[in-house]
């Protein structure tokens, strides 16, 4: 059994308008997605802005009320607040945010920031607590004099590492990382990604890695889902998605990544225009009349794609 099982998750927001401010329509931020996160693995969630990937992440941490569907953890549906509270769910599931400056309280010292989750869930004496915080700083490779400093005294990469240390404080089983390196420079990004991988190996943590950067997801995740308009267009292993993309949207996304090898640039450009043209022509085939992504169809054990029925035969090489 997987650690987290998401089944038919839907998160809809009401749109209110008119004379009595009645609910006239809904934004389908997340509209029926299923996936599993296994112990110790990194699951990638890729999508452009507005695709619903962050909303999904928030729902898993319990920050977003769910419209329908279930998220099962240890045999219980944690979409209910009372269940989360009862099983101390947020001790096991923590989050890392994109913007490290706005997710750390500027008026608290690092010691208090990192100790906050410990104080919430554990009863430690002052000494034990300090010892634990120091240990956590060690894990993310920060000097121990960081304890008494404030967030603004650190660089972006260091702050992001403090965010990781805070998420680690309660020995979680799963960390939801929402665009953890998007705001960082290349060399700092490498540092944070290395830390995340090292911690995972050592403590057998799972990540839900949310990102729009296909290169980073490819580096971090073995399994992933491509999200568009609140639904999955394609799920599969790294190999499936990057080497045998089937959905037109995935192909379009992959073709848009700039390549660092200037040799192929004319070829890439040609390819991108071609994919863009096919996308325009065939878009209607891959989406329902209302613009909804079709249901996923299994094309191999690991690989499912939202394909129309007619293209189903003989797509996989």
């Amino acid at each position, binding site marked *: 059994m997987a650690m987290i099982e998401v089944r038919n998750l839907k998160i809809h927001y009401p749109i209110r308008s008119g004379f009595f401010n009645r609910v006239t329509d809904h934004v389908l931020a997340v509209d029926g997605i299923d996936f599993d996160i296994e112990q110790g693995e990194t699951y990638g969630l890729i999508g*452009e*802005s507005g695709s619903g990937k962050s909303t999904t992440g928030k729902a898993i941490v319990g920050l977003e009320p769910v419209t329908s569907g279930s998220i099962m953890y240890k045999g219980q549906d944690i979409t209910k607040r009372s269940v989360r509270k009862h099983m101390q769910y947020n001790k096991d599931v923590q989050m890392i945010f994109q913007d490290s400056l706005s997710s750390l309280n500027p008026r608290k010292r690092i010691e208090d920031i990192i100790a906050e989750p410990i104080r919430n869930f554990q009863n430690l004496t002052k000494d034990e607590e300090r010892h634990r915080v120091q240990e956590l700083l060690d894990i993310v490779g920060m000097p121990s004099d960081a304890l008494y400093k404030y967030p603004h005294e650190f*660089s*972006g*990469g260091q702050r992001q590492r403090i965010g990781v240390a805070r998420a680690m404080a309660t020995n979680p089983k799963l960390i939801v990382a929402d665009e953890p390196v998007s705001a960082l*420079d*290349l*060399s700092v*990004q*490498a*540092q944070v*990604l*290395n830390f995340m*991988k090292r911690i995972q190996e050592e403590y057998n943590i799972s990540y839900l890695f949310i990102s*729009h950067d*296909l*290169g*980073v997801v*490819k*580096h*971090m995740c073995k399994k992933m889902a491509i999200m568009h308009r609140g639904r999955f267009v394609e799920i599969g292993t*790294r190999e499936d998605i*990057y080497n045998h993309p089937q959905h037109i949207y995935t192909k*379009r*996304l992959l*073709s*848009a*990544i*700039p*390549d*660092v*090898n*200037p*040799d192929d*640039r004319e070829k*890439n*450009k040609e390819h*991108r225009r071609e994919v863009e043209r096919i996308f325009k022509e065939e878009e209607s085939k891959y989406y329902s009349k209302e613009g909804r992504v079709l249901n996923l169809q299994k094309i191999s054990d690991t690989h499912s794609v939202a394909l129309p029925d007619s293209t189903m035969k003989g797509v996989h090489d």
Partner: protein
Amino acid sequence: MDKPEDLLLDVQHLHTGFRLGDAFYDAVDDVSITLRKDEILAIVGESGSGKSTLATSIIGLHDMRNTKVTGDILYNNLNLVGLNETLFDRIRGKDIGMIFQDPLAALNPLMRIGEQIEETLVYHTKMNKEERDKRVLELLSQVGIPNPKRTARSYPHELSGGMRQRIVIAIAIACKPPIIIADEPTTALDVTIQAQILDLLEDIQREMHSGIILITHDLGVVAETADRVAVMYAGQIVESGTVMDVFKHPTHPYTRSLLRSMPQAESDDDELHVIQGVVPSLKNMQMKGCRFAPRIPWIPASAHEEHPTMHEVAPDHFVQCTCYKDFYFPDDDQAAEKGE
């Protein structure tokens, strides 16, 4: 290629210093670049490298009370450094167009799109109202806006991020400026939109034969769009050359380290390369010697120059300091061979 009439902009020994307390600190330190007609010059670097400061120096947007700019920025026999504001106002927008990173912040939320584009035309041209309206619609369709008439009457918040960036580009090219400076034009956009905007920039460049300075931190964007590239680190250019040369034969330790720290497809379970230390802040910048030296401490001090200069390693391919000759990655096999 090097005909003098093709030369649009010639920046020589530019220093831009900001006041911190009582002293001025150089955020751009002795930078020389040239921009020719019909080319895209990319300036690439991490945050704090001075790439945006270089751009704002060229277009003269600094608060001059707290900024000191010295050196030469030659355009059309005119030195833009120390040019008086009245003259500069005539150049800004007309001869140099600027595209900013955040299109929502660059546009006035209370003005209709059409009026904002028209504003530049009112200021810089003698067109009458009718001609201006025509030109606005022309510009909107040039930047790929599907319904120009309707868009001209809408407000910035009604458009998507990609569309807004197209509007900013339309404003920048309204007067057909020979020079366009694009400061991180696609950083706030999704990859598919990014590809469209970069295509648009290339089309515009081909059509108007202008020179574009593209400032970015994304090496992929540089490799796909630029003709020449200058890599900046801590306020200085450490390597410059054609995109082919720099990406195929990266030479300066910084360029090599940067390319190596990119998450690459194949190196899945490997650790990513990490550049030791941090980019020095303005106040802590060491003024002498090679600025990258503290971040490659395994290279002996004797390999660096005391006063780093640019060395031509191949025709038109320049590298700063001599440390590139002795540089190696400590995690390479080569390291073992070198005995340390």
